[in-house]
């Protein structure tokens, strides 16, 4: 059976202070912050960021990719293929979506564990709700990725599932008709009524299969869209109080499809070897997994722990948040509407557009972004080999703040960046304060949805400050 070989979470840079909601709407909106995907992010782009981090430095490549989200960028068209392309996975690796519902997150992870091949599960969500509502306030945006496989000496298992159990039932607790900006919910106490017995059944079964008493659990994670049921279940299962994990409600908010995975990543960031972690997901039933960490975990944790990502972040105003999520339709500049990318050029340029793969001249070594056939330095023709620069850091050579260019979130900050080891590219900066940019700042590439035009998402790369 597969275990977790590597993992990484991606929490977007921006935070909305709940107090800002309350101030704007003249109501109480609670404490803390929620994580906010930027205007140029969606579940696919955040999935790429989590996937890149999970695969960085890992020699075992996934042979399949499962992408789970309640909010897919596209219907009909697979979203996992864009992630597959941005991660530069081989064409022989299958990439499929498990989309539309929150439970697909734990489903994708379990399917990756069940798979007879190394498989990457990517869980991602952008939670919205109508202005002033609980979902807007309590939701959050994040992605998490787990590379699952049997493990070997080079890429050992970090945590293995020792038992799992499920309880499934059909009931109308939370739902959304496709195309609607927010989900609907039945009366809150009804959800608690439906979830708690399912959780009790699945948890009891899981603990029995693992041969573990609740008191023997080192960490207990309960995640799901129903906050009240989560709390009831976590508090009632008999675990040591200090084993109950922070549900991140005060920092990221509830990240839906990604949340059980996000909390697991957070637990793995600090867990010691041979610890038992119970993950309970309450979404249209209950899915329980009991994990046991291995000795390999300590030296192979995620490079950017969840806690460090939560510690950073920039404040976004409520008006900006509403604009980014499409609830506030702002006056556009008097500029031409952006053109959607065309399918044939995008197809021809897949390695460049999605993989950020340029070329290196074999005659003189000069790097080129985008890939060229004729060398800009020595003019050699067709002596190029592809070279991916997605993970190469760069330095800002010069930059400008463009107040005329179209953007959902003006102004556009553009920079000319020079890559370590050669190569220059002119691109947009993101997750940045326009007033703070300096020549010489170090940046890294990040996969983004630049804009959507005529129903086509334009995915490509931007640079962001290295933090």
């Amino acid at each position: 059976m597969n275990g977790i070989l590597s993992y990484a979470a991606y929490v977007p840079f921006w935070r909305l202070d709940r107090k800002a909601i309350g101030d704007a709407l003249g109501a109480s909106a609670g404490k803390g912050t929620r994580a906010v995907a930027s205007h140029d992010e969606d579940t696919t782009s955040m999935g790429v960021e989590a996937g890149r981090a999970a695969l960085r430095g890992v020699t075992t490549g996934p042979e399949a990719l499962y992408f789970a989200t309640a909010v897919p960028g596209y219907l009909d068209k697979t979203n996992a293929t864009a992630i597959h392309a941005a991660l530069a996975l081989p064409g022989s690796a299958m990439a499929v979506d498990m989309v539309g519902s929150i439970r697909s997150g734990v489903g994708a992870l379990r399917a990756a564990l069940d798979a007879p091949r190394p498989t990457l599960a990517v869980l991602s969500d952008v939670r919205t709700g109508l202005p002033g509502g609980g979902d807007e306030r309590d939701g959050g945006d994040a992605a998490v990725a787990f590379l699952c496989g049997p493990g070997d000496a080079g890429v050992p298992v970090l945590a293995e599932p020792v038992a799992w159990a499920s309880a499934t039932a059909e009931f109308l607790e939370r739902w959304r008709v496709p195309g609607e900006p927010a989900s609907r919910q039945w009366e809150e106490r009804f959800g608690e009524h439906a979830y708690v017995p399912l959780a009790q059944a699945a948890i009891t079964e899981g603990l029995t299969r693992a041969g573990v008493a609740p008191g023997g659990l080192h960490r207990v994670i309960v995640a799901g869209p129903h906050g009240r049921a989560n709390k009831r279940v976590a508090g009632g299962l008999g675990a040591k109080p200090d084993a109950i994990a922070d549900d991140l409600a005060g920092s990221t908010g509830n990240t839906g499809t990604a949340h059980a995975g996000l909390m697991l990543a957070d637990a793995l960031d600090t867990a010691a070897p041979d610890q038992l972690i119970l993950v309970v997901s309450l979404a249209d039933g209950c899915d329980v997994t009991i994990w046991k960490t291995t000795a390999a975990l300590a030296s192979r944790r995620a490079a950017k722990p969840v806690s460090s990502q939560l510690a950073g972040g920039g404040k976004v105003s409520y008006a900006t948040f509403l604009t980014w999520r499409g609830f506030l339709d702002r006056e556009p500049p008097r500029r031409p509407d952006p053109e959607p990318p065309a399918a044939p050029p995008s197809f021809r340029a897949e390695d460049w557009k999605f993989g950020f793969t340029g070329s290196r001249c074999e005659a003189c070594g000069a790097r080129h972004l985008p890939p060229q056939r004729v060398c800009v330095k020595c003019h050699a023709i067709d002596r190029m080999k592809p070279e991916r620069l997605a993970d190469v850091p760069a330095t800002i050579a010069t930059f400008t703040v463009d107040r005329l260019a179209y953007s959902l979130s003006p102004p556009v900050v553009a920079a000319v960046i020079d890559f370590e080891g050669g190569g220059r590219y002119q691109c947009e900066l993101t997750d940045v304060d326009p007033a703070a940019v300096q020549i010489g700042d170090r940046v890294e590439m990040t996969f983004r949805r630049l804009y959507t035009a005529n129903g086509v998402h334009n995915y490509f790369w931007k640079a962001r400050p290295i933090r």
Partner: protein
Amino acid sequence: MRYSGVSYHGENIRPGIEGGKYMASNGIRDRVAIVGMGCTQFGERWDKSVNDLLVDATKDALASAGIELPMVDAFWLGTLFSGQSGLTLSRPLKIDYKPVSRLENYCATGSEAFRNACYAVASGAYDVAMAIGVEKLKDSGISGLPGLAAPSDGTKAPLTAPASFSLLAPAYSKKYGVEKDQLKEVMTRIAWKNHKNGALNPRAQFRKEVPKETIACSPLVAGSLGIFDCSGVSDGSAAAIVVRAEDAHRYTDRPLYVKALSFVAGPANGPMDPDYDYTTFQEVVVSAADAYAQAGIKDARAELAMAEVHDCFTPTELILMEDLGFSARGTAWKDVLAGTFDLEGELAVNPDGGLKSFGHPIGASGLRMLFECWLQLRGEAGKRQIASVGRGRSLALTHNLGGAPGECVSFVSVVGSQPSK
């Protein structure tokens, strides 16, 4: 055959910026003359269509040369957005079965129409040719320039023109140790000077002096560029009639002789090559050297009566002063502040107000620059007449570029009122 540099026979040609040295550029010095020019009022011409502007500029040019339309043998029409094919010109003018070429080369489109018309006459293929440029930007309803995008993979950074050119300012500041505020003062003075010149020009889009404080405090568009650091988005048209030099005096006793025409497209390496530092347009350096060689100019600042340069944004004009050899590297900012390029200065630059206040209808601008040379070298510039022409300076330069720093096309011409001795 004259090469701009040494012969390339038997040598390994080194690519890159040295490549221009190996261009065989023979020039057509004094073989073609301008005998008539026309230029419409530039500006927000809500009252005029593309057809109207073309007819108006053509009428002016024909009248100036003292000829009728049927006497023109061939036409070159430059426009970026405002029409395609020769029919854009032949339809409104009812040209009877003559060759009409429509071309574009970004913001150097008007100059490119002129260059091709000159070559056609110099070759002997035609006796009389007309170059005309037109642009109607104000019908689009948007700010700045409309998009030109062919279907693409959507990966090119969507920088606007002011943003692209704003990259010059911090790079220049850093390289030459000019404080940001000082550079803003330099940029402001360029805009102030060009507005001051434009105030004397009845055809200009903006005919008012603008106080330096207003320019310096104008709303930011991109980087340190305020709205007053940007050229005017404008409608307009300009035209020139050219003939072989030996025929010129049949049309006018004061023709302008074409001394040099140079046009280069760069390898567009700037956005790709870390060695490019955003303080120069190499394309301009190469085209200026070529033009000076064709015209026999040794010291442009001392020999020219005036220059019309592509001041699309104020930092562009600053850097052009160095690329065109008017100022030593890193010193143009001091020359600007000293008034060297003022109307009464040592070398008047953009005496007609430039793109800044005359306006920049893309396809027309290169010919509009020549129109100012036509007026100045013939002593017809009225209140803004340059004094050095009266003292015997007889050469004028036009410079026109298109694209962005590090990836542009550049045109340089030299025209003169005297044939070479």
